[in-house]
């Protein structure tokens, strides 16, 4: 069980490092896919609430460690997104992977909305129009395109390692 969490934290470190190195070469306009967000969201679909919140917390910290944003900003944004996803999930009778498309679309919007609001509150200027045009739209495009492959990868990993909530 300890190795599950140690391995998970190491994996998030790898995702964060890849995001600020390898994925820079995949920038569309000024937006790029957010691997931590995608992985956390896909993992949360079949995880219980506390597990999903824990990984959102870990992911947010790694997000902020390689950013000039204060520590905790991304944690709050990811928690807000995962909180909503978990609430929606509990209201559904059945789940189809295609539901991930609207979920990742609105989840990304919510995540960015919370993030920009927090950054504005702590004193970072946010120029809304270029932000939406150059960052948010390409990022949304990437997320909608990548969520299903990421979901498949998450399910494979969950089954391989026998994650606590993998076989639900």
């Amino acid at each position: 069980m300890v190795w599950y969490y140690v391995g998970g934290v190491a994996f998030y470190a790898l995702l964060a490092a890849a995001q600020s190195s390898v994925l820079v070469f995949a920038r569309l306009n000024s937006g790029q896919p957010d691997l931590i967000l995608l992985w956390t969201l896909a993992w949360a679909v079949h995880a219980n609430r506390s597990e999903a919140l824990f990984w959102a917390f870990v992911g947010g910290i790694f997000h902020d460690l390689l950013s000039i944003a204060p520590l905790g900003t991304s944690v709050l944004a990811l928690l807000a997104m995962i909180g909503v996803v978990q609430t929606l999930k509990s209201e559904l009778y059945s789940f189809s992977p295609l539901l991930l498309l609207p979920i990742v679309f609105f989840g990304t919007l919510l995540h960015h909305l919370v993030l920009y609001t927090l950054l504005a509150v702590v004193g970072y200027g946010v120029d809304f129009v270029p932000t939406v045009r150059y960052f948010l739209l390409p990022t949304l495009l990437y997320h909608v395109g990548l969520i299903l492959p990421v979901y498949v990868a998450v399910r494979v990993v969950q089954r391989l390692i026998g994650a606590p909530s993998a076989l639900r």
Partner: protein
Amino acid sequence: MRGGWRNNRWSGLMVAFVLAAGLLLVSLLGLTRPLEDLLAAPLNALTRLLTQTSRTIITASEAPQTMEELLQRNADLERQLAALTAELLQLREIASDYQRLSGLLNYTNTRRDLRTLAADVIGVEQQSLLRSLIINRGARDGVRVGMPVITDLGLVGRVFRVTANAAQVQLITDQNSAVSGRLQTSRAEGTVLGRGLLTGSLRMLYIPIDSQVLEGDLVVTSGLGGNFPPDIVIGQVTSRRRLEFELSQEAEIRSFINFNTLEFVLVVTNFEAADINVFEPPQ
């Protein structure tokens, strides 16, 4: 029973939110800095490794594969060399003109040469909104918060955060970056703000309404505010906007630097940002 279970569900989320908000608050007070430094060190090393690996792969994939490609590449490089040689000659001529004029005006250049430290770019900001990069030089190399970062093409930004072996540089393209700039021909001053784009697009605001702003005009740092040394190139004016009802005009600036492919930068180590807040008039 079901209500209790629901309450329990919400309490977990609330606890997580309170913890995260507490973390943010503590971070804003600067108390998490030692922890961040500790965690960032291995993360920066991992980022550096991945950056180098991906650059190697990309360079290898872009290398010419056949003899025809090699010949074509050679011809392209020769053309570029010819163009750059012509440009170099032109610049040497301008430099020599400048030296002669300086001598005639008995102009004394009191500015010391900038002492710089070369650094590799090992990571780029992952928050889409913010613009920063991580370099492989830190406090051990003498890098301090506030030091300007440049390349041969102009101003990159300023050191924002420093760990033992790495530093984070806020780019001039960041939406929160403001640099005092000066138009090279009219000497008019203004504030150059980042637009948060990787294209190197900037905005220069508060240019006096009666100043002449020409497309193609160079914009350099003015040194006002004490954050950057004067006369470092920021970019070139691409367009201007002047509205009748406004008291100042603004210009679109394009930096010569491609921030998306920046690999090496120079940290100016002999410049100390001045704190001019103490000179503010008493309230």
